[in-house]
């Protein structure tokens, strides 16, 4: 290649890449100021004097345009900024599981956002201890929220020492879905005990359909695994076993054996251990599966034709269960609003925003448009706008079991899924599952 061509190619390279990067890079305005002065930035954001300075609130969340809660959130932002012209909201969407890492790294350089919408699972549990978020007990009182939040919602964000870590926002129910037409076709009633379930499963298979579908291969399936275990135990025993790793509790052992028994009786669809959440959804929505375990996030995705046939409920109970009715999960840890030290420096603006967001009318938008269970006690909603499944979920003939997210140790959580995969795989004995569980908790002491 001659020299000219070479140089020209190089020059082209340089020009193209610089143009692209210049187009792609908009250096952010805000960060530079913060870096040199850590916490000592004047904490008086009240611009009392004349020239109205705009305060920018940065918010990180994962409710993007594809999430049902994305649209109501944006509408809340829009209305808020219209009502408060001197506060600007700059929100950014990130993958939910990436948010804690991003926040923690940014925090070390004092670059964290003012507010974070993230779930109370994993490392956020340590945030108030590590100074990444501030406790909100006093704020709840000062801002007039006393008594407005549901007790169960607040409890889920409260540490053993009484600190409340964030404002609860998203609640959810995680019921069992029953396809009534499949049961009718097989000629069996909806089961409320596990014996009935086993009989029903046989009949359903004979009729050509599949009984219970679960995503045995990913993190969702583990919640069915624990739910079934918990159907045999009381909440206290669940805390002892799933929470503290004591797998000698008799009912815990019974729970695991129950699971294996159900599996070996063919209650789960064939190949359940390889099914992921999307496949599970699709197959159930294709309407030849009797039962599934989907949370409130799936209400909006069920096809119209299926809606009248779906009955929500809990999981059937084994004989001798301490529960009164079939069990299901319901919790508020799915999303909370956390305030960071940067946000605390803008407390006045944050206060106005939070008070705005938690107005019943605003929360109602999330309930109506996205089927979110509200964290407030009183949220007037227009019932006609609600998804029928969501309406069902508010009043289930079933009992709430304590969701493992609340007490499973953070270090055990990621690996628990592997054991539940094993459990769904045919051939794994109850003894092996119990042994692996014991090992897992031991290793994480």
């Amino acid at each position, binding site marked *: 290649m001659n020299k000219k061509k070479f140089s020209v190619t190089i020059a082209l390279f340089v020009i193209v890449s610089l143009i692209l990067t210049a187009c792609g890079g908009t250096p952010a305005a805000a960060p530079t100021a913060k870096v040199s002065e850590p916490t000592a930035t004047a904490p008086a954001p009240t611009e009392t004097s004349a020239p109205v300075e705009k305060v920018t609130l940065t918010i990180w969340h994962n409710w993007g345009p594809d999430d049902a809660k994305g649209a109501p959130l944006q509408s809340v932002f829009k209305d808020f900024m219209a009502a408060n012209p001197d506060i600007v909201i700059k929100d950014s969407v990130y993958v939910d599981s990436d948010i804690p890492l991003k926040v923690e790294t940014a*925090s070390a350089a004092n670059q964290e956002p003012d507010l974070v919408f993230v779930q109370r699972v994993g490392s956020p549990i340590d945030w108030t201890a590590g100074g990444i978020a501030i406790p909100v007990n006093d704020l709840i009182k000062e801002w007039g929220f006393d008594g407005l939040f549901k007790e169960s919602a607040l409890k889920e964000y409260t540490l053993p020492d009484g600190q409340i870590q964030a404002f609860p926002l998203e609640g959810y129910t995680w019921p069992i879905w029953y396809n009534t037409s499949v049961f009718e076709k097989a000629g069996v009633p909806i089961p409320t005990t596990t014996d009935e379930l086993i009989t029903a499963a046989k009949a359903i298979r004979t009729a050509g359909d599949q009984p219970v579908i679960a995503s045995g291969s990913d*993190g969702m399936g583990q919640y069915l695994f624990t739910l079934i275990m918990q159907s045999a135990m009381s909440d206290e025993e669940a805390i002892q076993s799933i929470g503290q790793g004591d797998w000698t509790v008799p009912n815990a052992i019974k729970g695991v054996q129950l699971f294996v028994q159900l599996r070996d009786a063919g209650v789960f669809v064939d190949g359940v251990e390889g099914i*992921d959440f999307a496949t599970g959804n699709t197959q159930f929505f294709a309407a030849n599966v009797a039962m599934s375990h989907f949370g409130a996030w799936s209400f909006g995705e069920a096809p119209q034709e299926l809606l009248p046939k779906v009955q929500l409920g809990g999981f059937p109970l084994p004989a001798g269960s301490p529960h009164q009715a079939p069990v299901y999960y319901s919790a508020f840890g799915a999303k909370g609003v956390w305030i960071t030290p940067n946000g605390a420096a803008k407390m006045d603006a944050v206060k106005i925003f939070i008070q705005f967001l938690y107005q019943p009318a605003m929360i109602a938008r999330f309930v109506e448009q996205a089927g979110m269970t509200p964290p407030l006690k009183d949220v007037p909603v227009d019932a006609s706008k609600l998804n029928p499944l969501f309406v069902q979920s508010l009043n289930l003939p079933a009992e709430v079991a304590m969701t493992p997210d609340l007490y499973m140790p*953070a270090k055990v959580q990621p690996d628990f899924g592997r054991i539940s*995969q094993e459990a769904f*795989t045919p051939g794994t004995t109850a003894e092996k599952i119990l042994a692996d569980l014991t090992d897992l908790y031991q*290793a994480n002491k």
Partner: protein
Amino acid sequence: MAAINKAFPDNKGDLFNIEYHRRIVRRRRITFLLLASPALLWFLTFMFWPLLNMFYISTTRWDGLSLPQKFIFLDNFIRILNDKNIAIAFRNTGIHLLVGIPGVVPIAFMLGFFLSLRKPGYQILRTIFFLPSMISVAALAMIFLGLYRPDGMLNTFLKVVGLSSLNRVWLMNQSTALGALIAIDIWSGIGFYSVLFFAALANIPQELYEAAWLDGAGYWTIMWKIAFPMMLDFFGVVVILQFLYLLSGAAQNVILLTGGGPGTATLTLGFYLYNQAFLTHRLGYSQAIAVLLFFVGIIVILLIRRISSRLSY
């Protein structure tokens, strides 16, 4: 003296001139440093410091970026010795390497050689071969989930050809999960390295091949008796690259497809590092694993280098 500024000696007297030699050496050193220092600077800033950091963190107990570090000396390493998972991870990674290197590099070399013959259509083939490397990791995961699902393409294909007895839940079966993941790495590795080999082989002048033709050699002989010896160094480099990829990079597939399961069937060293760092938040321990991988890597690389240089004689 005039000799001092010469680049090469031009009379015998120069060779005995110490000043001349010293000057040469110094000039070489300066040139060397001038050429190499930008790269060195970059490297030291971004790599050397973290290396030290890695060693330091591996001696602490650090449970989260927001929590304080606690110096615990060599406890993390003692934990490694007692950790059942480490032994399992070693075994899984070992299998990964034993299958993933011989299964990729020789085949890639042969395909690369074939490409370098520039038979009609070689450009299209080369582009196709490179495709797997061009897509993002998330896309790869989507493709292979679609393949390996119980109702996915692989099982459907087996059913169609009448081998439905071989149907399995590939990613969740203790005996096939690891193999399924290794297959992904082989699939993408062959294509990628074949393009690389093509680039390297393109430097060999066609006359060498012609001479061999005249002697009556076939392509197979040419490939192994002429091309391969010339490529030995590069071969070694490719082996090292694939080794490094399998050691740490292949963890992405584990993360996205099996999460180390079922049980511990696909728990590899690279995945374990990620798991401990990002999932169970044992940062100190994860860096200890990184130190372990570091030393394993050095030893293996040195070995490969030694073998390839021995072979080139």
